[in-house]
């Protein structure tokens, strides 16, 4: 382990290469008590969510979108965080940063939730009002404003659905490709269902030079596609289910804030999971302080960017002062959802900023995780504010929002739906960690080839090799 005057001894960790496979697969195959308890708890929440969904459907049906605001907020929160999760692995791998290695698989496993997101999206696809106004009245538009203009074939429903489906497929493909070498290694030690699954998914991978070459190129390509597709899908989902549901709201900054909230909250959740793995999961030898330190700087940057974009949105509308702009501000920022916005601002910016401002805190495992938890709460409040607001903003075919609607508080079914959706996502993630190694074996071993701590003059420093 590295020791110097500047860094703690566990800043960089170097597990023994020969023991990595044995250790991590053993951990994957066991199910400790706290994990079992967490799975049981989240499983119960998922069941409660299903009950809430049935109650809501029985009570309101799918003809009117307005009762589904909390469902939309829950979907958006789960989708925003879990769809952005795999991006961390893809982006840091493309930039060839070594510190990302323990973090990669934690981030990629979110790909499994692509299937969950598709299922969650189906009711929303049904309740979304059509672009064409079925009954044009006074001061109403024949075609409501949206990013689809005159509404090319299948829009917005099918293109939104295809977007969510392909984000899921791309994330699953990334996870599969990354995990193929690890599943091939774990195959030798697995029995029963796991052995059959690994055999099928790894397809007798052997680790030839050609396979590694395609593996690397494939992950670079899928990572690049994922980034390009995800930002686009964030754009269409936030526009179709957020902006275009509030008559007259036109804001180029909003989709950017949506994606930024996704980056911030996903990185935050990854840091929380890493903290739990390091402190309570027995992975101290695999997860040093370095990934927390490096990722915390990005988290700080995302928090600052979030604040900047929110200010840009606010100042433009505040300065514009048209009736529409004033109503949007009163509705989403200072009036109806003013309290939620205050919480959103505090947790998305103030708290992460105050926590991550200090270098000693950034150089800990708890500090970035704490800021991450705050960002996650902020993102949740952001989605409540935007999507409950959007689904209850009045006539979607109106020219613009002429009065400020009151806030909508959750009923029992809404509460069950929200906790069930979040609990369901956690349940599926936990289940996936029992099948797919949470630490990328090949990536850790590759890192060990290129990193060591060596002496330079009087100090001990990390020496990195850059093969490319």
């Amino acid at each position, binding site marked *: 382990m590295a020791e110097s005057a500047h860094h703690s001894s566990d800043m960089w960790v170097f597990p023994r*290469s*020969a023991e990595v*496979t*044995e250790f991590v697969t053993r951990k994957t195959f066991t199910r400790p008590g706290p994990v079992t308890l967490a799975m049981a708890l989240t499983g119960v929440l998922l069941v409660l969510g299903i009950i809430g969904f049935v109650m809501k459907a029985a009570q309101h049906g799918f003809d009117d979108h307005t009762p589904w605001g909390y469902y939309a907020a829950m979907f958006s929160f789960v989708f925003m965080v879990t769809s952005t999760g795999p991006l961390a692995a893809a982006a840091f791998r493309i930039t060839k940063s070594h510190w990302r290695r323990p973090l990669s698989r934690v981030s990629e496993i979110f790909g499994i939730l692509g299937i969950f997101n598709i299922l969650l999206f189906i009711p929303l696809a049904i309740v979304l009002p059509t672009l064409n106004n079925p009954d044009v009245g006074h001061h109403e538009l024949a*075609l409501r404003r949206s*990013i*689809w*203009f*005159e509404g*090319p*074939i299948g*829009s917005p429903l099918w*293109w939104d659905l*295809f*977007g969510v489906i*392909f984000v899921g*497929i*791309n994330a699953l*493909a990334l996870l599969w*490709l990354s995990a*193929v*070498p690890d599943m091939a*290694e774990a195959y*030798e030690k697995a029995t029963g269902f796991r052995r059959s699954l690994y055999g*099928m998914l*790894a*397809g*007798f*991978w*052997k*680790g*030839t*030079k*050609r*396979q*590694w*070459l*395609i*593996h*690397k*190129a*494939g992950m670079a*390509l*899928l990572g690049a*596609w994922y980034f*390009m*597709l995800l930002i*686009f899908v964030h754009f*269409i989902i936030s526009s179709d289910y957020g902006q275009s549901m509030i008559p007259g709201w036109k804001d180029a900054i909003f989709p950017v804030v949506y994606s930024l909230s996704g980056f911030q909250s996903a990185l935050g959740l990854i840091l929380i999971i890493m903290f739990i793995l390091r402190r309570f999961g027995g992975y101290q030898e695999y997860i040093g302080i370095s990934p927390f330190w490096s990722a915390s700087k990005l988290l700080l940057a995302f928090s600052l960017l979030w604040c900047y974009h929110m200010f840009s949105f606010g100042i433009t509308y505040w300065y514009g002062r048209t009736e529409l702009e004033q109503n949007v501000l009163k509705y989403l920022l200072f009036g109806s959802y003013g309290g939620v916005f205050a919480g959103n601002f505090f947790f998305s910016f103030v708290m992460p900023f105050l926590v991550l401002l200090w270098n000693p805190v950034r150089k800990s495992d708890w500090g970035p995780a704490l800021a991450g938890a705050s960002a996650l709460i902020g993102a949740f409040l952001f989605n409540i504010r935007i999507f409950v607001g959007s689904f209850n903003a009045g006539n979607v075919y109106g020219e613009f929002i002429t009065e400020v609607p009151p806030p909508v508080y959750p009923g029992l079914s809404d509460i069950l739906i929200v906790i069930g959706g979040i609990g369901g996502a956690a349940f599926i993630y936990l289940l996936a960690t029992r099948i797919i190694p949470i630490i990328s*074996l*090949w*990536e850790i*071993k*590759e890192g*060990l*080839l290129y990193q060591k701590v060596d002496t330079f003059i009087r100090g001990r420093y990390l020496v990195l090799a850059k*093969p*490319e």
Partner: protein
Amino acid sequence: MAVRPILGLFEDANYAAEAGDALKEANIPEEDYDFLTDAPYPEGAFGEREERHRLYVFPLVGALIGLTIGILMTSMTQMAYPMVQGGKPIMSLPPMAVVTYESTMLTAIVFTIIGIVFESRLPKTKQGLYDTRITEGYIGVLVNVEEDELQRVYNILTQAGAVDIVRDQ
């Protein structure tokens, strides 16, 4: 005569590279041997041949197909249902761009996945010759040779420092 595999296991990557050099000197064609590792070593680390692949062609073809579909779908829809919106021309680019971008991405992703499966030659129905010690960091040098060459290759691998040699049963 049948081609048979033989696998030399090396604890030290340098010895595995030396085995590769020795095989080359013994006129064993480069296509007939491979290095098996548990992590991606840098290209050329073992002095091995340069691998060529066509993975990048797949997404390119996929993207072109998606782009064509997107342009055709949007332009034909707009021509079939000519609705003037906000004084914009019938064939306006912004709405076409949204759909075309998505269709391009979707087909590029599908073709990339097909390309990965095809180019990495996965899945295989049988594992073939392998040793689990490779997962512990050993380097495997897998050679496929005619049966009467097996002993010669065995000797080359042993002389290069193989800690064990595994043959097909």
